[in-house]
Structure formats: C-alpha cells, structure tokens
C-alpha cells in the first residue's frame, strides 16, 4: 500500500530532478487535470469560468455516489427487518452515535428537522477523507474550494434556521446576550456579526488544513529518501510514514466528527437563542 504511494513519487521526482527537490509535494496535493495523474479528464469552459472535471471533482462525485449507494441500500434493508445485518450494522452504529451523542445534546429539541442534513455532512466528509487514504486516491476535502462549499451550505442552514424561527430582525436582536450594560451594545453587535461569518470560515479552513497537512507530512517523509539520495534512511522514513498514515485515519474520523458537532452546535445556538 505504501509502495503504491511511493511509486508515483519516484516517477515524478525523476522527471523533475532539475526543479526544486520539493516540487513533487505540491504536485501531489494540488488539483490535477488528469485522473490518478494518468487519464485525461474532460475540460469544460463555460462563460469564462473553468468547470473542468479535475481530480478532486471526480473524487467528489465518487464519494457522493458511494454515500448514496450505501444509504439507499440501508434504507431498503430496513423495510425487510428492523435488525440490520452485514455492513449496515456499522452504518447503524455510526448513525445512532451521531443522533444520540452529537445532535441531540447540542441541538436540543427540534433536532429531527436537521438530522438528515447533519448525517449527510458527516458521512460525506468521512467518505471523502477515507477515499484520499486509498493508494492513488485524492482527498476531495483537501481542496479549499470543496471545504468552502461545505461551510457555505452550513452557513445558509444556520442562518436560515435562525431566521425561520425568530424572523429576520428578531434573529439579529437575539444575537446579543441579555443583561449587559448598554454602553457596550455596539461593540457586542459588531463582534456577534463578525462571529457569524468567522465560524463557518474556521470550519472550512480547519477541515482543509487538517487533510492537506497529513498528506504533506507523508510525502515529505518519503521524499526525504530522494532528497538525501541514500537508501539507509528508508527504514526510518517508511516507519514514520506508516505511523503518520495510521494517524491520518484517526484524523479523518475526528475531522468529520468535529465538523458535524460544530455545525450542530451553531444551529442549536441560532435556533434556541435564549440561553
């Protein structure tokens, strides 16, 4: 498995030996017009914006299709018997965990309306993260555009939920906590408005940076063999890279969980504004 990760590094490092010795790191975590670096993908230019299907977009589609297939099969299996079997047991454990430990405590009552969206977010991010760890796979969430899109949708859901419950003006009035002296009201208002925008921005950056940083560390450790041009550093390098690889699997789960729990916390704070 690690060999399949090292082979592309070998080819590219040999090609680009005249460039800076760390160019392969950027080449491997950035977007690419070819699938797996080999098969060219369709390029579509509409109205001057680049809509080409790149590496990350193709893996976005793959993750979406996988999540769709997994859950439609699970839904059909529930019509036959209430007790799941096979792969559905794993999915049921995760779904119940998200519903009971993540959404119910943080959202409070009325959580059923947001449960489908939060479950989709969790499983989509988890699938996209794990697909990036498969050899020759790319992390779709390792792209700031993808995580910004997820954060924008979270922003729309949070503001929409708050405004649907309290009305547009009432929502903004409820942003400021009660029982504070009136001379810091303007400052509090500005701080809360800024907070409305920085929270989804932090969600996007946290997910993107965590996913990309892990891959950069693995590529740097393996690339150390080529930069130092000696084979004797290989046992240490591959050992560390294996350890970081296992840590990456843990980080994939943790980041999906953190995105979901923070989104559900923000929705809860917007809907139940009276603390």
């Amino acid at each position, binding site marked *: 498995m690690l060999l399949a990760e090292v082979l592309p590094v070998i080819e590219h490092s040999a090609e680009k030996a005249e460039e800076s010795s760390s160019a392969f790191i*950027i080449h491997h975590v950035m977007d690419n017009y070819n699938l797996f670096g080999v098969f060219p993908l369709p390029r579509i230019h509409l109205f001057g914006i680049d809509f080409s299907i790149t590496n990350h977009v193709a893996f976005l589609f793959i993750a979406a299709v996988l999540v769709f297939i997994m859950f439609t099969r699970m839904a059909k299996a529930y019509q036959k018997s209430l007790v799941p079997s096979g792969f559905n047991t794993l999915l049921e454990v995760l779904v119940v965990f998200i519903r009971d*430990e993540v959404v119910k405590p943080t959202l409070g009552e009325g959580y059923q309306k947001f449960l489908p969206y939060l479950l989709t977010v969790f499983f989509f991010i988890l699938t996209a993260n794990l697909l990036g760890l498969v050899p020759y796979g790319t992390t779709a969430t390792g792209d700031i555009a993808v995580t910004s899109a997820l954060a924008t949708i979270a922003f729309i859901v949070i503001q929409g939920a708050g405004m649907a419950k309290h009305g547009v003006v009432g929502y903004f009035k409820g942003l400021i906590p009660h029982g504070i002296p009136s001379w810091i009201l303007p400052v509090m208002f500005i701080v809360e408005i800024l907070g409305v925008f920085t929270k989804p921005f*932090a969600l996007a*950056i*946290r997910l*993107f*940076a*965590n996913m990309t*940083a892990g891959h950069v560390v693995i590529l740097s450790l393996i690339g150390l063999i080529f930069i130092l041009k000696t084979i004797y550093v290989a046992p240490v390098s591959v050992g560390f890279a294996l350890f970081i690889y296992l840590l990456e699997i843990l980080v994939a789960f*943790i*980041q999906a969980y*953190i995105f979901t*729990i923070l989104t559900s916390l923000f929705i809860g704070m917007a809907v139940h504004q009276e603390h």
Partner: protein
Amino acid sequence: MDFSWAYLAAGIGAGLVVIGGGLGIGKLAASAMEATGRQPEATNDIRTSMIIAAALIEGISLFGLVITILLALK
C-alpha cells in the same frame, strides 16, 4: 527581489505555530489527566471534551501553518 527572507519567515513562523499548539494541547491534556484521576467514572465525558478541544486548538495552529506554507511557496 530577494525572496530568502520569506523562507526564513516561514521557518520561524512554523516553529512558533508548533510551540503555541503544543503548549495549548499539553495544558489541555494535563488538566484532562488530572480530572480523570480525581473522578474515574467521568473518563468518557472528559475524553470526548478533550478531543473536541484538541481539534479546535489544532484548527487555530493550522491557520498559522497555512500562512507559513503560502509564504514558503511564493
């Protein structure tokens, strides 16, 4: 234009980011261990809160890391 200052800044910045993140998460882990020692029945709740707080602190240190990477790549 001399770009070597950018590499120096990126290196120093990355080191500072690691110091900040390491100190923050170390303090967090220390108080989590102490709390678990005082009341072992609350281990699960403490562990969950610890993981959430660690991910948030790591998010901040990764903000700084993104800026240093941008500096080093220019």
